[in-house]
């Protein structure tokens, strides 16, 4: 593997330590996360997504031995989206008016739906962070090839894309500096220009360079006979009973919460919303 400069972001790599979640099958983890976020599409009350989150997020963080700081900093990145969901729903839905803010009517229904969507975003976001920080991208591709029967051509194409991605931050910096240094009006030591035109030029150059690199990679893969027949796998990924336990526990918790809130009369969906 290529040596990384320590400052470069480690895209698609799991955190260094080992944990229960690190050892689970990546395909199973991806499917479980997909299932949980599909279940959370249904309720629009506050209780259901909150209870699912309270049950699953601490368990996932503990099982993945995730540092609290990592969770908080990455969740802070999508908190604005959650806030804007709450704000926009509060003022745009029909219902009993509870307050007037700057000429906009805040309704009870709007507050409930907005809070529910915001909580859903935070819960799914936190679980997605746990997934990415405990899953190695290349290992997931091996597992998808082994267990989800994805053709080797597809997984290798994605891995080629991944190889390009690893170099993108460095390529971006190089292109930006190279373009700035050719600007005759620039003073020495001035910061890099941030206007849309120069950012667009750099983005275009980045795309061209990446496509060239991709073409070379495709030629290399073809020269090595990739896609010409069945292949063996270098380091197989295991699929064991513990993965079945993960599926049963997670989906069981979701089913229990939905059953409980529905029993208590708290469960709201788009069709039962007043």
């Amino acid at each position, binding site marked *: 593997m290529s040596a990384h400069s320590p400052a470069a972001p480690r895209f698609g790599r799991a955190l260094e330590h080992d944990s229960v979640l690190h050892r689970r099958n990546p395909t199973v983890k991806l499917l479980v996360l997909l299932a949980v976020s599909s279940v959370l599409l249904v309720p629009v009350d506050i209780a259901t997504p909150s209870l699912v989150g309270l049950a699953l997020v601490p368990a996932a963080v503990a099982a993945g031995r995730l540092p609290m700081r990592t969770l908080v900093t990455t969740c802070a990145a999508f908190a604005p989206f959650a806030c804007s969901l709450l704000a926009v729903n509060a003022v745009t839905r029909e219902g009993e008016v509870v307050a007037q803010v700057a000429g906009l009517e805040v309704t009870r229904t709007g507050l409930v739906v907005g809070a529910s969507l915001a909580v859903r975003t935070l819960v799914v976001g936190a679980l997605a962070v746990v997934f990415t920080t405990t899953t190695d991208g290349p290992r997931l591709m091996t597992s998808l090839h082994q267990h989800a029967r994805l053709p080797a051509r597809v997984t290798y194409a994605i891995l080629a894309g991944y190889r390009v991605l690893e170099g993108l931050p460095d390529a971006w910096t190089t292109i930006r500096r190279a373009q700035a240094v050719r600007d005759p009006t620039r003073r020495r030591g001035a910061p890099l220009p941030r206007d849309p035109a120069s950012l667009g030029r750099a983005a275009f150059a980045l795309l061209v360079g*990446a496509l060239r690199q991709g073409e070379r990679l495709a030629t290399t893969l073809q020269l090595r006979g990739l896609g010409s027949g069945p292949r063996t796998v270098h380091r197989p990924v295991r699929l064991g009973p513990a993965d079945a336990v993960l599926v049963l526990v997670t989906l069981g918790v979701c089913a229990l919460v939905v059953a409980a809130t529905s029993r208590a009369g708290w469960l709201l969906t788009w069709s039962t919303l007043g």
Partner: protein
Amino acid sequence: MSAPDGPTTGRRGLSLGDLVLLAVLATVLGFLYWALVQAWGALQLAMGPFGDLAQHVLAGGWMVAAPLATYIVRKPLVGIVVEILAAFVEVVFLASPVGPMLLLVGFVQGAGAELPFALTRYRRYGWGVFVASGVSAACASVLMGAIRFGWLQQDWFAWRVGLTLVSSVLLCGLLARVLGDALARTGVLDNTALGRARRAAARPAPQPHDEVTVA
């Protein structure tokens, strides 16, 4: 893995070269989109309750991969494949908070953007088809959002539809054509269907056996 998907696939199937091109396209656009999102959260907060509308202004931008890839590779399913790959890169490698639901969103948006090209049987690439691609992608995107976030019951539904339409036609449809032509002019796409079509158009009397000629 028993399917005969080797290099002998016909003209219509996706070759390894096509797939790598799509993956690279998806990766770079996914990376640029990720960089844009870093700056976008603050804007959303600053716009207060209207912050949610900011996503519609940008909506077309994250669907541009589908018409661009279809323009370059010119085979069925390319738009859908590239959108799913882009979603995959964002979820698995760039830690998108949307989670794997993004794969489904990518599928729906890719299908929406590709539909007009499929209707011309991947033969026509005029400006009109790209506008239609933007409109169709906008419809798919709004439909998906209506299901996920219940936009139909909100007051601003017309604004959402309008902004998404304008953004999709400009940033998804027309931008894809402009970007594709600009990329083709640099020469990186010479070995793709787009590059071959441009060479054929530039040559008044096409001769069938001179594919190796260096322009």
